[in-house]
């Protein structure tokens, strides 16, 4: 219970601080953020957008790990964990895409411009979508678990290719990408300590949030599953 209150306070603090702390030319107080040329007020999205994108990747990774475990041990609990993680990943993926697109409208002038990161998140969205389409088309739970696990692993091995080919095929606009001359690696150099503090607190807060949601989600899937069995058997 205590850590739930702690998490609540942490996320509240991040939300308030991330939005309300002023951006000034030469930050002096601990609650002032520096002005990053080319980003200005838009820079504040980093506290909300980056954690969602980070969790999209973490959720995908966890989903693949548990899919792999399912194939090894054939334990349906692992499949429930993989599925719960994929569901959360899908939610965070949509959030990251939407927040990114809104930000891009103000920073780049268009909601969508096939920047490498936009393309990559789009590919992830497609993978998640395909996974759910596959799951919903199979009746037998064992078959569903096996086939979706196989598909997760298959999709996972294609991801590294995106990292290699994207920068070659399209120009990067995203802050922190190789072609980005304007802002440079934002996280490392241009944030002052207060901005970094809020940023990493936000990452930590969102990660805890993910694990908490994931736990509730897979436990409820397993319980619902067992309840269904019980009702059918009388």
């Amino acid at each position, binding site marked *: 219970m205590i850590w739930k209150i702690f998490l609540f306070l942490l996320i509240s603090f991040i939300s308030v601080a991330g939005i309300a702390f002023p951006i000034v030319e030469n930050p002096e107080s601990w609650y002032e953020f520096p002005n990053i040329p080319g980003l200005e007020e838009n820079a504040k999205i980093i506290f909300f957008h980056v954690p969602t994108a980070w969790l999209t990747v973490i959720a995908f990774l966890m989903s693949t790990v548990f899919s792999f475990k399912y194939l090894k041990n054939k334990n*349906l609990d692992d499949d429930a964990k993989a599925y719960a993680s994929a569901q959360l990943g899908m939610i965070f993926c949509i959030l990251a895409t939407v927040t990114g697109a809104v930000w891009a409208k103000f920073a780049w002038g268009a909601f969508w411009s096939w920047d490498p990161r936009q393309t990559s998140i789009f590919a992830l969205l497609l993978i998640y979508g395909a996974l759910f389409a596959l799951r919903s088309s199979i009746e*037998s*739970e*064992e078959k569903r678990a096996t086939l979706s696990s196989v598909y997760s692993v298959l999709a996972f091995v294609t991801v590294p290719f995106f990292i290699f080919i994207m920068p070659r095929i399209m120009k990067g606009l995203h802050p922190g990408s190789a072609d980005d001359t304007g802002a440079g690696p934002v996280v490392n150099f241009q944030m002052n300590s207060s901005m970094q503090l809020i940023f990493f607190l936000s990452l930590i807060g969102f990660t805890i949030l993910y694990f908490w949601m994931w736990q509730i989600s897979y436990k409820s899937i397993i319980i619902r599953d*067992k309840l269904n*069995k019980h009702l059918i058997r009388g």
Partner: protein
Amino acid sequence: MSKYSVEANELNKTFGRRLIFHGINFRYDDSGVFGISGPNGSGKSTLVKIIAGLISPTKGRIIHKNSDDEIIPEKLHNHIGFVSPYLVLYEEFTAWENLNIFSTIRDISFDKDYAKDLLNRFLLYNRKDDFIKTYSSGMKQRMKFIFALIHHPELLIFDEPTSNLDEEGKNSVYEIIEDKSKESIIIIASNDKADLNLCTEILDLKTFK
């Protein structure tokens, strides 16, 4: 007399979260007829599929040995003859072509004399150049036995062998079972009294729930 043995070690199978059976142990050596019985849905077909290596058990192991050498799963299919109601042969090919194709895919030489002999025994020789799709269900069932026997397997698994067969067909099946039981292990999964009468040992799946 073959030196073949098949052994089950604490076999468990669950589908999803539903238990089918648990704790099955047996060991059959050399030759003989063994039966598996149980009411519908007790997992007879599942058990024979596990024995044939078509699906894996949830827990436990099934071990096939030939002269004390364990057969690896990749090679198992050439030691097993399998008949089941779910088995379907390639309907766009003739009976003869089917047998020929199976031998080439198994990478063993096609024993033409044996094929002719089997076709004769199951009263299909006159129809050997007809497409399987023109066969009646009884003829298809008899054809499955030829499919199961053509590669001289050491282990024969018959799942409901006499369904769809008339008296004449049943007799040729019983004849072949008696004949082959001298040199190979035969496992019959069935509820038919007449089928089970042939068996020296019967495993009742009711007791493994």
